[in-house]
């Protein structure tokens, strides 16, 4: 893993979910909230305040960017802003996933799961 990617890791659960959701398609705020709630079975919920705090941080770090796409809205002022994953975001996301993979596939993790699995 390149050293510069390491500074972004580990991702917080909310960030991971958000990037994962954007990896599939470009989305606007409400779409993200719903997608994340669906993916995590309601474990990770986002409210307007913290969603945009996270987005602001990820934008600042260049992991996501505003998309050129604008939603079809009922009126002029209801133009939704869409977000997309950047190339850097994609690399960070895959690095994080690889990190998690090596974590869950490590012998000690497997042993642990075997012991405590219900």
């Amino acid at each position: 893993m390149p050293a510069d990617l390491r500074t972004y890791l580990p991702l917080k659960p909310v960030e991971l979910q958000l990037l994962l959701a954007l990896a599939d398609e470009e989305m606007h705020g409400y779409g993200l909230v719903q997608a994340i709630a669906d993916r995590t079975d309601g474990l990770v919920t986002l409210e307007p305040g913290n969603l945009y705090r996270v987005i602001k941080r990820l934008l600042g770090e260049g992991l996501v960017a505003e998309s050129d796409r604008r939603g079809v809205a009922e009126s002029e002022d209801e133009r939704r802003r869409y977000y997309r994953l950047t190339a850097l975001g994609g690399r960070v996301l895959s690095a994080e996933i690889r990190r998690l993979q090596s974590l869950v596939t490590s012998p000690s993790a497997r042993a642990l799961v075997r012991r405590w699995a219900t």
Partner: protein
Amino acid sequence: MSRRLVSISECVFATLVRLFPPEFRVRFGDDMRELFRDQLRAAHDRAGARGIVRLWVRTLPSLAQAALLERRDALRPMARRRNSITAETTFTSRRDSVLETLLSDLRFAGRMLRKSPVFTVVAIIVISLGSGAVTTIFSAMNAVVLRPLPGTSGGNRLVLFERRTPDFAEGVSGSYGYYRHVRDGTRTLSGVAAWSKVSLSISTGGEGAAVYGNIVSGNYFSVLGVRPAIGRFFAPDEDRIPLAKPVVVVSHSFWESHLGADSTVIGRSVSVNGHPFTLIGVAPAGFRGVFTPLKTEAWVPLMMQAQLRPGRDLADAPWLWMFGRLERGATREAARRELAALTSTWVDNTSEPAGYRKYAGIRITDLTGLPDDARNAFLGFTALLLGAAGLVLLIASVNVASMLSARAVARRREMALRTALGAARGRLVRQLLTESLLLFLIGAIGGTFVAGLATAGLERIPIPGDASMSLELSPDPRVFAFALLTSVAAGLVFGLAPALQGVGKDITSRLRNDSAASSARRTLGSSILIVGQLALSLVLLVAAGLFIRALDDGARIDPGFQTTGVATAKLNAESWGYDSTKARAFYSALGERVAALPGVTAIAFTDIIPMSNSANGAAIQLDGADSSSGDRGGRLAVQLSAADPGYFDVVRIPFLLGRPFASSDDERSAKVAIVNETLAKRLAPDGNALGRTFGFHRQRVTVVGVVRDSKYGSLTERTPAFLYVPVAQLWRPDLVIMVRTTVAPASFAPAFRDAVRDIDPALPRPLVRTFEQETSIVLFPQRIAAIVTGVLGGVGLLLAAVGLYGIIAYSVSRRTREIGVRVALGAQRWDVLGMVVREGMRLAGTGVVVGVLMAVAATRLIAGLLFNVSPIDGMTFAGMSVLFIAVALLASYLPARRAAATDPLTALRSD
């Protein structure tokens, strides 16, 4: 109802977004609102009102936290490096640490409140009720006169101006020439617009719709800064050449209700008052014109006046109201001076009738939904109601203060322990204060919701008088800000004492939880709080009782005519495009048909309905000008109304002398009049007024009858000199038909409408209302005041009773042991019951005494609205005190019953 919840939620959320730092808000504010709107809709569709509440419970804490964190981050100049521990702690400015403390205080407060959910929920409900009371009234004030007109932009620079006498006592509207003179001459106003009312009937094929419309200058919308929802507003050439461009703009609601919200209607031809007009635009939703109690449904350009209000020479007549937009940098005072100067050049250089010369002054005020005089009356009235609502907030705050102080007592050990461990006293006070402020803040949000629902209820109270009269009172961000401010103020005042009390100085005794002395002080303190609540609620009850008495009294005042059994309908022949011949033919045909309807005993045509908020003023020239009368040049100001031969049979005003009008009193015969007693005395101070003459409209008029004085405008008016002239001799195209009938209005109305349709099927369906409905406007302020103070009194009494219950129950629980001993020693059930109830009654009795004294002082403020009811009306005071004692008895009986059931064995073993 839950639609209202959705709209208020959006408004509250929009205000809360302001908690975020500006840069964040600019970047994400709209998106956040949008996201919340989506969540709101989803929650509402899924679970209605409950879903909305749940969404708020979830959103609010995270939103507040995110906002504070964002503010803290904004203070740190360097971007934090991700996952770096050292960066978190290095940059600490003063404001930074304040925010840090606030955050941790808030988190702790949130945890503490969540730990005792019952207390939290009850306290929030109580504060919401109190805050909701004041917020509701403020919302009404805001909607009608405080906020800029909905739909306009830059509303704070819009001003209304009016020509007035130099002392501002009397005003006059402007003629078209005067309007042009001002519009072209002003430098302090960037635009001046003019408007007037006009009755319109608009038809898109088939039956027409009668609506309230405005006839306006071409720049009306641009001066207001209103943008069309669809289509366009008036173009410059539509404001220049008379009758050249028949165009019309309709309101959003008219577009929805009559045009099926179809956006292709732009450019279509519609019939307005019988003439073809082109529909060019739709005003935005929410825009109701510049006189908001009346819902304006359509706007037509001034240039169409000759067609819409035919037969009137309006070149010199004053019939326009004006408003303008202040130029940037221009002050109101500069504008006033300039307009006054323009007015005096106008007076000097034109042949304006001499009577208008006295209107040389200019009054300039903010443009709100009401003209100045009405605004002041409205503000005065609502200020009284706001005072009453303030009492409820006070009761609620005191109520919560006593809950907080009980809680403070329960948490003394915790506080003493924290002090002993080194917590600064100031820090603990701040912590406790944060808790109460948090409660009051959440209560303010609750209060805004209460206000939203309560104003929806108020809007539903029908307003007598004009049929298009309605109010839109919904809260906006300004209202929410008001709720927040009042709640925070209440929270500071009523949260501070319990917080200080909770963090007393004497640690050791509190650690030992030894509290004999302080508990006596506390009991006294909470007794005072409860007596205060009881007294205030009694004040409200007495006010409500007085208004109810006034309503009853007002209904009994004899107006001098008989309102029962009469149906009325206003007929705006002018708006149907009828000329005078056609209108006369219509009225005589209608008269014949209606007279033949079953149950009809008399019919009359007149121009105004008595005591229904409309009046005609004029001046007559007295014969042999009597200098002692003090009337300048023998002129006497009178009020008048048109009447026909059937009029006095319908309204049943008795004749003292002479005869009613006859059908022979028409436009060709000699001018005649019937006068009231007051005018008869002026015409013939010592004798028979019959046959006397006076000058009116440069003609000789002979008195043929004298009728008894009655009420004309209001129940409390000083009887004016009043004059009736035959409809045929004072022709107006718009008349009212009044029908005395023995059948119920519900069955008369359809028969009447059929009669109208038989004559002309294209006419809009007339609205049939009873005479009583029309005159009920004179009691409307009393009715509103009775409803509002009644509800407030009920809420206040409920809160006070709950407070009383709480304190008695608390005292019973503390005295369990003592009561157990008493029972063990042979006290009977009745003894215990009596002992506890007596304790409650002692508090309630003190409350009654204090409350009555306060009410005596307070009700003087409403004396002007009470007709003949005395503001210290004994019956009301006694009745309300009895009601009050009964409720207090119940509130102390419930804990008493529990005390009486005390089992001595368990009681003695306890503690």
